[in-house]
């Protein structure tokens, strides 16, 4: 049913999705926090820019990333001049592309969750000797828990399923940048439907189990508001 190359693609997919989700959470959290607290007048510009990559078709976005990161592109040229390697067709490139593309799915729910907390818990923590960083980790993040769950699930699932960007800047190199979504796509395009069904089924099952685990675990930690 699943051959070796499928398993390798599965491994890469998981690695990519996990890494991307981690990076998204790590970078998205401070960004979302800042967006939720800042009173900067032109904040809405930034908010709009973050959502913008979404409106381009993934392949096209991948195309522009390719132009940007390529040796003739501004970013690629910069990197090369600093002695770096071009990012296209590498796993790192995939990660960058995925992060860029899935950013809004992480930042927006987090921003909403942080906003919903309000000022008060942070003030209370301040009067209890917690430094800004301390209270961010011990109060803001635990209270924003549902937002983190949403952000992680959307970010992870979207990265697993996404393949336009990944295909474009990854180059579909087996063992390196060929992820499961591309493999399934290849099977469908190549009319190997049985194989595609197997792979899709497997992916769905795996994801379902993962999601169930996450949601079931989460439901035990709900913060209840004003029950009395």
């Amino acid at each position: 049913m699943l051959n070796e190359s499928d398993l390798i693609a599965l491994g890469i997919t998981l690695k990519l999705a996990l890494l991307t989700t981690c990076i998204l959470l790590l970078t998205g959290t401070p960004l979302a926090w800042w967006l939720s607290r800042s009173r900067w007048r032109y904040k809405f510009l930034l908010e709009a820019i973050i959502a913008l990559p979404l409106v381009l078709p993934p392949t096209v976005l991948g195309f522009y990333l390719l132009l940007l990161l390529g040796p003739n592109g501004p970013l690629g040229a910069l990197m090369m001049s600093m002695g770096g390697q071009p990012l296209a067709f590498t796993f790192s490139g995939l990660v960058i592309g995925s992060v860029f593309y899935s950013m809004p799915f992480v930042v927006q729910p987090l921003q909403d969750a942080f906003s919903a907390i309000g000022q008060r818990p942070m003030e209370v923590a301040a009067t209890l000797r917690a430094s800004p960083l301390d209270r961010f980790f011990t109060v803001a993040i635990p209270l924003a828990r549902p937002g983190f769950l949403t952000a992680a699930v959307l970010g992870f699932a979207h990265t697993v399923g996404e393949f336009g960007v990944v295909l474009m800047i990854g180059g579909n190199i087996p063992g390196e940048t060929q992820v499961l979504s591309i493999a399934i796509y290849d099977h469908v395009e190549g009319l190997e439907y049985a194989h595609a069904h197997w792979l899709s089924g497997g992916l769905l099952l795996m994801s379902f189990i993962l999601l169930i685990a996450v949601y079931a675990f989460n439901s035990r930690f709900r913060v209840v508001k004003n029950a009395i």
Partner: protein
Amino acid sequence: GEIRVAVASNFANTLKVIAARFEQKTGHHLIISVGSTGKHYAQIKNGAPFDVFFAADTYRPELLEKQGIALAGSRFTYAQGQLVLWSPDKQLVDSEARVLESSNFRYLAVANPKLAPYGRAAQQVLQKKGLWDSLRSRMVRGENIGQTFQFVKSGNAQLGFVAASQVKSEPASLAGSLWVVPEGSYTAINQQVVLVKDNPLNNAFIAFVRSDEVLKIIHESGYKIP
């Protein structure tokens, strides 16, 4: 009247020129849907309202014919793709393609052999040269010949096996270096067309495609005529 045409991405631009001609001549309008041949196959099988299907290979029109979805006997080869090894770099590609044995490039772009006839052709060429396995780690695969071209065009892959029609349609590309892969070193890339719905208008269009006028257009776009 209207004719709905499904066309493989690589032939889309050429078909648009043909369609314009046809419209001019007959006043009939062509609605062109561009896509990959695999996708079109699945769609036609599932009831897509296409009248004519310009595929990128012979396999899928054949299948449709066998399954009785396409009109038996309507299938024929409308163009033959020409494989070239191309680089935007003026110096890179020599007339013998020795570059392939060198380490002067990081990535070689090839279309996915499983999906794209150009990819299969490139595979055959490389296998003949005994390079298929050794170049594996330096090969990036486009889903179709369009993407393969973009890999090279954007400079991320230094060279790649692309279609002659692509290099031709992009005048700036001609400035690069080019090796036209000799015929015979790969199975001919026959692109076939098949009729999905039989009616006079569709037949008229097919007849038009067979006309010399159109064959000339196809040839000028970088395809060979079978």
